[in-house]
């Protein structure tokens, strides 16, 4: 009889959760609408994924004061959409699947039954905190990866640098953010 390890069980649970998210994504993709200026412009994200990611980004990059630019000003979600074009295929699939997991399964971790984009801001924060501290490594690691991507979209913008007193490149700018 083969030995069942704790790691194997956890992985099974993680895969199960991801699969559940995938199924949920297939059955619930209605009710998402792109802003007019995004229609026909996205390269990877569909309307649902764009809406979910915008909701997540608005919490992950939430400002602590009025001098911080918004995710719309810095076009965080547009950046992620462009960045994802050249991602390895598996990584891209995992990213999109994880958005579905957050939308449809994530709320359960914070004892909510509505989908993520329907929750209030504090409830959304509770969901993301639950993911960040989740016992299942794949969920925790997935959130860390998503967070890193969103912060890349945010802090790449020179308008955020004064918040940190970051001087930016020492050479004249090449390329635009």
């Amino acid at each position, binding site marked *: 009889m083969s030995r069942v390890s704790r790691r194997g069980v956890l*992985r099974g649970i993680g895969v199960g959760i991801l699969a559940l998210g995938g199924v949920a994504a297939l059955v619930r993709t209605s009710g998402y609408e792109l802003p007019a200026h995004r229609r026909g412009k996205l390269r990877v994200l569909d309307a649902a994924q764009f809406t979910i990611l915008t909701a997540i980004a608005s919490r992950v*990059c939430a400002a602590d004061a009025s001098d911080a630019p918004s995710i719309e000003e810095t076009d965080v979600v547009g950046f992620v959409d462009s960045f994802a074009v050249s991602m*390895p295929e598996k990584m891209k699939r995992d990213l999109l699947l994880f958005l579905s997991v957050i939308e449809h399964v994530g709320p359960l971790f914070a004892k909510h039954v509505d989908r993520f984009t329907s929750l209030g801001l504090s409830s959304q924060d509770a969901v993301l905190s639950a993911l960040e501290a989740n016992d299942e490594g794949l969920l925790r690691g997935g959130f860390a990866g998503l967070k890193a991507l969103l912060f890349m979209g945010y802090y790449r913008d020179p308008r955020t640098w004064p918040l940190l007193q*970051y001087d930016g490149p020492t*050479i004249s700018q090449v390329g635009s953010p």
Partner: protein
Amino acid sequence: MSIRSGSELRGQVNLQCDAVVVGTGAGGSIAARELARAGAKVIAVEEGAYCTSADFNQREEQMLPMLFQDRGGRTTDDLAIRVLQGRGVGGSTVHNTNLCKRTPDAILDLWHDRYHVTGMRAVELAPAFETIERDLSVAEIPIAMRNRNNDILRIGAEALGWRGGQLKHNRVGCQGSGFCELGCVYNAKQNALKVVIPQAVLAGADVLSDVRAVKVLHNANRVRGLRAEAIDREGRIVAEITIDAPVVVLSASAVGSAALARASNVPDKYELVGKRLRMHPGGVVAGRFKDEVCGDKGIPQSYECTEHLSFEEGSDRRVWITTAFAHPIGTASVLPGFGAKHMSMMRSYRHFSVLTAMLHDESMGEVYLGSEGRPALRYEMNRSDRLQLQKGLRACAELLFAAGAEEVVIPATPQVIVKSRRDLDRIDWSFGKPHSVPLTAVHPMGTMPMGDDPRSSVVNSQGEHHQLRGLFVADGSLFPTSIGGPPQISIYAFAQHLSPHIIARARH
């Protein structure tokens, strides 16, 4: 005698040479140079692009995907450890922080005594190290170039009476911009890209960038060549390349080389290929100081603390401590939490000093072929290494307090903020483990280890595969164990040392 992009090729391309080198980092560049200098017709293939200092622009969001594998997103398969590996002509030498340390004598002795590695002790390797250090202008980092982040480490170590010292590097004309990990726009790095590859090309080597090795061709226990794919900037295959050659040198890193060997069904009677992966996983601790630290400016790493580092096998002192500082995106990714609290912490960016505890690890992971045949890494930290990690994080916190930090932030989930050195005794450090603290590894090694016993090694002490004549390894895959420090000089020197054997085989 050139560096060309494979993206210009189309259709089916057939080439012949005496030796193919896969990968153009520290090991591959030296192998290509030495083969070419010996008169062999050599082709070096590189999966990434050929970029020079003119292509670097100090922008994280553009350089990370350009210079690193998987666009900077490579992790272990459980997502617990971020693995930063170079991609492009020059490999990881393009983005590394230029630290130059020889393989410790104790490690070389261990390999000799326990892992049946012959001809690779310190005295035997000395000529290769000397050649490399001369070629790469290795010298001690001037104390005047030590930035405040590194000076904090020195002050902390001296206050505690802990062992430490100034590091060596391979830079000439450094401007102290602090953007080393994004490629040097000032071309101050004396690395494979700037120094060794041009020497190889000058000696007659052909370098093909944007070419991904797919399979080592072999039959009857002899190497026959390499099959590869030329790819464009979007990763589309534009040409299929077959290179006939009696020698193939794997220098695609401990991840890439092992994955290619597995994809090629290289003989592996004892199932060793890809196993015994070590990678120096490291965690960070940040200290907030009243005055500005500006850790992003100047040479990123110039001082080390070796108080908790011993190279004896089974030692309970297996932590190498040095500084770690990132630009905003890297910093934001590591700090715990999100939202307004996270942003408030980011506002202390200039006041943070950051140290890293890097493990001289004993845990053994594995490189295997994941979906779509891409390399994947499995690595589970054992209990001993987890304890070392906890010890290392605590040591970093002690150093920061000893240097005057007002508070110390450990980016765990949930985050740990410590207000005084005394409080360190009250902390349950068991949170210090993968997934609970962000870990990064930049030194994969050990997946095709050398040694003269085929039951415990993949290649012999000359770097040639035990069963497959003409297949050599010249990268960090060779290490039978972790080496407990920056590996670039070891990899350069091992390739230099093994080159005569590769040349001899290419001539037969």
